[in-house]
């Protein structure tokens, strides 16, 4: 009898404790930051996180209805690995119960999270993942950047019109959805521009994490192309270009947005001088009021020039925050609907309007490497 009384008292006590601690919690809105912070893509992930954190410092709260919530960033490392990415996304939606997910750098990693956010009905805002499949058939995945069919066309145009190239060789990272997709869109556009079905002389493959590309590059030498298109992860790309120079290949190298990380120049050094790639944003041409705020605050805090993906991280945070404010509710479905109708939101990278696939329609920027720095060349409007 005595035992039973003690047990009941204990249970009541514990229950009271839980109740006492309980209601204090939901004063925050959680943004899951889903990024590679270790592994091959860590450089890119770190740049996006910088942008998200800066936005969080400047705009730390969100107004939902008549109540103000604090925005808490829950950072999950997807370790640049597709399996780990799925685990990290699952943890964000199940355990941390985030209201919205931001990220990831790398289309393959974002695609790994796709089905998970879809099942959990949590909206995700991709920042710089450009493969069309990220948002395709997934009404819960959005992004604040353009997609690869556009980017591939921009670079094919550059190769054909500015460089006068007639024949190209493609070197792609075959285990990376981004690289394979972008290579294909480039090839399609380039063939169309040249009117030559055989304008792509060869497509050579390598794997993520490879370091020796001498065999592939020796093959490239054989084909004597006018230009080489080599979209892929920045470390591998930098090593490819360096080894190409060592083999005496002087043909211009073109690439995509993933090249814009300090590590690309750090690894490639003099070898990457003069390479040309497309990206999202240039600090030389601030577009909106938000661009100015972003640039000023970033320079003040980090004392360097921001990368395009950092600006996208900043924008992704603001778009999600704006959507929650417009939704006026933390209901998952309401948030999704609000993000989907984002129109002319003034982000740091320009006006953001999402189309029916959830992709932003925006201009692309072409940059080159000069004296160890990324330098703005031109802006290309969406077709």
């Amino acid at each position: 009898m005595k035992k039973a009384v003690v047990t009941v008292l204990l249970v009541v006590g514990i229950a009271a404790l839980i109740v006492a601690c309980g209601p204090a919690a939901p004063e925050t809105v959680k943004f899951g930051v889903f990024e590679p912070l270790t592994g091959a893509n860590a450089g890119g992930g770190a740049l996006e996180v910088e942008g998200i954190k800066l936005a969080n410092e400047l705009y730390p709260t969100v107004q939902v209805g008549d109540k103000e919530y604090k925005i808490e960033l829950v950072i999950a490392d997807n370790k640049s690995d597709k399996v780990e990415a799925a685990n990290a996304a699952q943890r964000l939606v199940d355990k941390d119960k985030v209201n919205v997910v931001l990220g990831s750098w790398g289309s393959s990693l974002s695609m790994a999270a796709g089905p998970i956010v879809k099942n959990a009905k949590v909206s995700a805002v991709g920042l710089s993942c450009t493969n069309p499949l990220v948002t395709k058939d997934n009404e819960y995945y959005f992004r604040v950047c353009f997609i690869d069919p556009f980017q591939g066309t921009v670079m094919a145009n550059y190769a054909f019109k500015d460089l006068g190239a007639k024949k190209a060789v493609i070197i792609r990272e075959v285990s990376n959805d981004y690289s394979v997709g972008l290579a294909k869109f480039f090839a399609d556009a380039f063939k169309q521009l040249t009117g030559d079905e055989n304008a792509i002389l060869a497509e050579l493959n390598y794997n993520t994490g490879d370091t020796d590309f001498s065999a592939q590059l020796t093959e490239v030498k054989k084909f004597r192309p006018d230009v080489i298109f080599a979209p892929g992860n920045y470390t591998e790309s930098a090593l490819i270009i360096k080894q190409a120079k060592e083999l005496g290949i002087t043909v211009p190298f073109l690439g995509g947005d993933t090249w814009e990380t300090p590590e690309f120049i750090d690894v490639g050094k003099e070898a990457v001088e003069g390479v040309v790639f497309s990206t999202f944003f240039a600090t030389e041409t601030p577009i909106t009021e938000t661009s100015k705020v972003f640039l000023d605050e970033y320079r003040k805090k980090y004392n360097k020039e921001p990368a395009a993906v950092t600006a996208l991280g900043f924008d992704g945070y603001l778009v999600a925050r704006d959507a929650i404010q417009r939704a006026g509710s933390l209901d998952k479905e309401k948030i999704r609907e609000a993000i989907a109708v984002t129109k002319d939101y003034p982000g740091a990278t320009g006006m953001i309007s999402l189309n029916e696939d959830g992709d932003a329609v925006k201009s692309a920027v072409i940059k080159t490497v000069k004296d160890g720095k990324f330098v703005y060349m031109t802006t290309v409007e969406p077709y």
Partner: protein
Amino acid sequence: MTLSLLFQHIVNALSLGSLYALIAIGYTMVYGILRLINFAHGDVFMLGAYVAFYMMTLLSLPWWVALLVAIVFTAFFGIGLERVAYRPLRDSPRISIMISAIAASFLLESLAVLIFGGRPKGVPVPDVLSRVIHFGSVSMIVISLIIPLFTFALLAVLLWIVNKTKTGMAMRAVSTDIEAARLMAVDVNKVVSFTFGIGSLLAAFGGIMWSFKYPQLNPLMGVMPGLKCFIAAVIGGIGSISGAVLGGFLLGIIEIMTVAFLPTLSGYRDAFAFILLIVVLLVKPTGLLGKRQAEKV
């Protein structure tokens, strides 16, 4: 394929193969003495490269001083690792010590992420080593020429140590039977420490050469080379030093020639390494230069 392209491919293959050979020797030495597959070998390789990197960047030492300091440091680190992670388990079932090796590998990788950071780093390669030299239309960088020379020099030195010196005799004795060697007054601990020192020294040297040839560091950079060089050691006959060198070159040649002759299959290059391993093991289970050993009961 023109002759000059073929020569270029051969040069590429030899330069990659010699690097594999260099790292495979370390695997084979440790296995030869202890029958232990040192899974942490690839991570010791990574550590050597990082130490040299920090010596060059933080302390601004000249590259060859950095190289020497890193090699010596890593050799002692290897000796310490053996003492902490493997020696207490020497008389336990072989599986325990193997698990301990895997644990050591993960520990080193995670520590490297914490201490060095997960973002890749670019290595300042000394100009002397990164200069491009041309032979007709075939070109290569100086380091690609140096690595094979060092590999063969080290091979010669190691064969001399193992076969001609007293320490080498002790090593062979421990390799044959630890108990019997101990009864013959061989200081087993000393021999094992020496072996780990040499193995780690080779790993560090390989790691630094690797980082000069492919100037990029990350905490997981040792995983794939570690796996490949383990394959090289097994193909050559694990435990045999000449076998490791042979296996390393064979692997390099197969990888490069796969891409050279079958460019469309270039994405499957790693798969060919594993296929080669399976074929060799099916035909000659002890590896190309391995000796059949009677199972000790």
